[in-house]
């Protein structure tokens, strides 16, 4: 049985841990707020861009000289998986759910006899995938995840990287795996295709919309606009995923730290009870010793 001193030390150490976890929770909560704001601020651009793309793509997609980013390479042999995780741990199931999703997809693709390549954004994902799929990882992009504010320039850099590889014929299909932010407690693991671009459907009110899209004028022409728009759209998609991921990471961390703080509280309660019982037992024991000693002397 642990001595009184041991118990006291234990309680002190759990209290310290609780202080740290509750501080981390507060930090995550404020970071979450910022990340959420950023996610909201970046939405209009992404929406407008998909609208434009939808308007454009409808007319060009079936042309024989449609850009490869839109039409694909005509094969589906090599798949590139962009696994976006965080740089830091202690955020509950955030990273493991992404990695689990990535593993499942890798297994699926390999069963179908496709080649798989991986690009990792974020240290945690790389560390977790390295053991099993180390040979498949062709690049690790450092320093993008875990910034205070996601910079669009970073997403652009990743997009340029992808376009170069695509044009060099290194892969046929590219998907990104990340966590979509739903609320502070729920994040949805999402697998999203980046290349070839899947143009969003033109939504709702088809009669009115059709009239609108038909009369667009293009300057210079559709193809040229598309060839500029597609790589940018790729960057926007990646940026969106990274921003969602950042918000999810903070949300997951907040929830995890909240749990940890509560657990520590319970543990302290249990240990304190044990400590008090033992203290009382000892006092009782000492009293009995004194009383029986006195009785013997009489």
């Amino acid at each position, binding site marked *: 049985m642990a001595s009184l001193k041991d118990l006291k030390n234990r309680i002190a150490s759990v209290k310290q841990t609780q202080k740290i976890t509750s501080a981390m929770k507060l930090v995550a909560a404020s970071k979450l707020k910022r990340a959420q704001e*950023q996610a909201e*601020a*970046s939405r*209009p*651009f*992404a929406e*407008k*861009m998909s*609208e*434009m793309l939808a*308007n*454009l793509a409808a007319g060009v997609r079936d042309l024989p000289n449609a850009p490869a980013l839109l039409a694909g390479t005509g094969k589906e042999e090599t798949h590139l998986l962009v696994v976006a995780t965080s740089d830091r741990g202690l955020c509950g199931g955030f990273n493991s759910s992404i990695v689990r999703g990535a593993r499942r997809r890798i297994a699926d693709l390999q069963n179908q006899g496709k080649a798989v390549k991986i690009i990792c954004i974020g240290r945690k994902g790389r560390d977790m995938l390295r053991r099993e799929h180390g040979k498949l990882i062709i690049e690790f992009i450092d320093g993008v995840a875990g910034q205070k504010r996601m910079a*669009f320039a970073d*997403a*652009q850099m990743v997009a340029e990287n992808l376009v*170069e590889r695509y044009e060099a014929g290194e892969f046929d299909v590219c998907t990104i795996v990340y966590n979509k932010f739903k609320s502070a407690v729920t994040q949805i693991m999402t697998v999203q295709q980046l290349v070839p671009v899947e143009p969003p459907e033109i939504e709702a009110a088809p009669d009115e919309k059709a009239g*609108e899209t038909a*009369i*667009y*004028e*293009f*300057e*210079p022409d559709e193809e*040229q*606009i598309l060839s*500029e*728009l597609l790589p*940018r759209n790729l*960057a*926007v998609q990646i*940026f969106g995923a990274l921003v969602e991921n950042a918000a999810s990471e903070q949300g997951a961390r907040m929830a995890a730290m909240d749990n940890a703080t509560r657990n520590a509280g319970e543990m302290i309660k249990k240990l304190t009870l044990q400590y008090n019982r033992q203290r009382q037992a000892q006092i009782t024991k000492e009293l009995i010793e004194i009383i029986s000693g006195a009785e013997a002397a009489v």
Partner: protein
Amino acid sequence: MAEAAGGPASGKVAFELVSPERVLASLEADMVVVPGEEGDFGVLADHAPVLSLVRPGVIEIYDGNSVSRRIFIEGGFAEVNPKGLIVLAEAATPLPELSLDRAKELLRNAEDDLEDAREPSESEREKLERVIEVAKLRVEALETHGGAV
């Protein structure tokens, strides 16, 4: 032409300038002049729908007959639809927020970058040259308009 639901008051054109990180401007103006790929074009209310590339340059926002705001953008896309004009730009700065000295400094930095790059690949060189081009245009815009509105 029928006024689109939710459109601005007649005679005004709704203008939105959006960057990936935030909405930079959302206002109504009498006319907006956009530096299109194939020449500047002015957008008034009820302009025909257009999708255009935008080259680096200055967007001019007119209130009445005079320019009320000038915004320098580093290229992007413009869409005119019955609801108004939307410009998607990766980077934009209102001219008054930019001093000529700062613009010249940016240009020098960009030129230095190109000189310092050892054996840049073709794509790198192109990229750096583009940055210089944008910086030059920025200086030019400030010299013409003096930064003040």
